[in-house]
């Protein structure tokens, strides 16, 4: 286990890489879903105001 964590001495390069990757992967998932939700909410509002106006 320790050998795994130490990565043969390269740990301080390898693990930040994986950490950054996890960060970017996670952020993109979050952005995509948040953008979709925001667009849906805005669309609902537009539809509702259209309906109210008609």
């Amino acid at each position, binding site marked *: 286990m320790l050998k795994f964590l130490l990565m*043969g001495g390269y740990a301080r390069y390898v693990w930040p890489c994986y950490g950054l990757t996890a960060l970017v992967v996670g952020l993109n998932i979050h952005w995509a879903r948040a953008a979709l939700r925001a*667009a*849906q909410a805005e669309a609902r509002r537009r539809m509702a105001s259209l309906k109210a106006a008609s």
Partner: protein
Amino acid sequence: MAWVWFHRFGSPPYFYRVAGLLAPWFAWPAALLCAAGLVGGLGLAPADYQQGDGFRIIYVHAPAAWLSLMVYVVMASSAAVGLIWRMTVAYAVAASCAAIGASFTALALATGMLWGRPMWGTYWEWDPRLTSELLLLFLYLGYMGLRNAIDDIGRADRASAVLATVGVVNVPIIHYSVIWWNSLHQAPSVMRFGQPTMPAAMLVPLLLMLAGFTAYFVALLLTRARGELLRRERNARWIADALGVATGKGSAC
């Protein structure tokens, strides 16, 4: 036959619905593929002859670099399709690509630098691959900057589509010119491995990661594109049905 499929996907309500259904079918396999790739790459693959365990960075660096390039091509192609056939769906797809591609280009650069530090001794070397990635990042930033600067979303789509098309023609030229330039400096070839060819135990996890990241990108793209489509279709009637507003029926997103 392909045209029928093409036109169907070009229809906004169809795309909105199908993209929503398909996204999980790419997301979960992506997670599985990456998990398998990580187990193989971090655990099962033997340490490299020259680089020791440091080479394992390739299992995140290569997918990031692959994504950065592939996403640009997808972005430029869909932008061109949008420009030629005036397809809103195509523009929505192109717009969705930008942030994803730029962030993974930055990640490829960061992981490349972190990989370079122990291997070359410095964080930066004007290695052809890193230099090309840097220029690619500038292309993305230019695309996003142009989009940002134009207020009207339709004009922003069209102008950035022209830019992306010009850029994609340039990508192979840039890549070749940088390789040529770098060959003059006789820089040590980075990221080569101790063995002449990559053994299966190292290669298979890499392929799994590449496939997993690709599926992950498709899932992201489908999700984002739906939102971009809503923003562009404004008050089209199909939106009310799709969101279940007019009838009051809730629909699963």
